[in-house]
């Protein structure tokens, strides 16, 4: 129960922060994406899947895309990250590895969002995302995401400490 409440609060807080986050040019870090990625690295249970799905869904509410596009994209990327990390890297993860994975994951999310939105736009009324995004601002977005990986990692550790603290309390009752 504590876990669900804390994850919900964190997602809503990060969504609110993302909405008011000052943009550099037209770019800003995607905090909910980073949260999903960090949890996909760290978690062995299925928590990271729920978190990735609902983080994406939170983004879907405020974007022009169809509902579910970010949710599905985040979910698929989180699953791939978790699978590759558990399968190929058993020791401590290096910064280089995390940087490479965040970069690839972001490019994959962008690709998935584009593809899903383009397919969906054929069946329903929604604007396709501009192709100008790929050429102009994606690289600055990517850089800002890499800068914010470490703070999000620390946030995830902090969350776990709070969850452990409250879970003990729940157990004692």
């Amino acid at each position, binding site marked *: 129960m504590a876990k669900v409440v804390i994850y919900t609060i964190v997602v809503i807080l990060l969504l609110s922060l993302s*909405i008011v986050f000052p*943009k550099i040019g037209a770019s800003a870090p995607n905090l*909910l994406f980073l949260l999903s990625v960090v949890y996909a690295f760290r978690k062995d*249970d*299925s928590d990271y*899947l729920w978190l990735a799905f609902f983080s994406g869904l939170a983004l879907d509410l405020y974007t022009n895309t169809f*509902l579910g596009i970010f949710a599905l994209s985040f*979910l698929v990327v989180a699953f791939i990250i978790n699978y590759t990390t558990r399968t190929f890297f058993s020791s401590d993860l290096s910064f280089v590895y995390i940087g490479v994975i965040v970069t690839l994951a972001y490019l994959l999310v962008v690709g998935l969002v584009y593809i899903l939105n383009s397919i969906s736009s054929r069946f329903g009324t929604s*604007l396709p995302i*501009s192709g100008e995004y790929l050429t102009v601002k994606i690289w600055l977005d990517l850089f800002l995401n890499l800068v914010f990986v470490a703070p999000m990692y620390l946030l995830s550790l902090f969350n776990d400490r709070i969850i452990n603290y409250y879970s003990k309390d729940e157990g004692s009752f």
Partner: protein
Amino acid sequence: MRSNRQLGVFSLLIFLGLVLLVLSINGLSRPLQSTGVQPSRPLVYIFSGIGNSFKSFFSYFSSVNSVNKKNAELSEQVRKLQQENVALQQYRLENEKLKDELEYRQKTAHNLVSATVLGKDPSGFSQSLVLNIGSGSGIKVGAAVLSQGYLIGKIISVDSFTSKVLLVTDPQSTIDAQISATGDNGIVRGSYGSGMIIENLSQSAVVNTNDRVMTAGLSSEIPKGLLIGNIGQLQSQKSDLLQKATVISGVDLKNLEFVSVIKE
């Protein structure tokens, strides 16, 4: 065992995501979206306030620093006054924005509905806003959205209590436009780099810096004569078949708080 459970959860969520996507494509997810936006509304307000306080906080420190150098004895007093000023400045700015909006509303012949900006697109994939009014207030898709008399975008989706605005600076936004001084027609398109660009102007068109760019009223939703901005810099060469130039909006599209929507 653990992997099987993860695979099960993954499959379940993929199914759920696809169901939501299909519902959304068929326009059946609007109530869900409208309800989903509500829990984050108070927090967005709070964070906007904190964000503004941070901006004021840093400008406050830089000013106190210079005051300290000039007069160390008065620094404490200045700090207190500055703190009060920060709050007052926010009220003044809010007041000015509301006054500007009201002034335009009194002048215009259009039937306007006031709206507060709830948030902007957090994904960064588009430039859009979420407003606190929807179909319940008579808002329709395609309606023009204004701020201080300038066209800032048009409504692209509406549900009962909220609506989404595609800003004129989004690359997907295109508006039929006219240079008011000469009557030359063109298309104003959003651009990530330059904000807005007016293009498709004929080679014979006379384009001068600071000329006003208005809506041409060729589409049914956006009325003629709404101010979009002023001509900035000519971007085309003499050899180009058609001319284009940047258009500068008179309002700061990154810091919108109150807007008006034209109701038919």
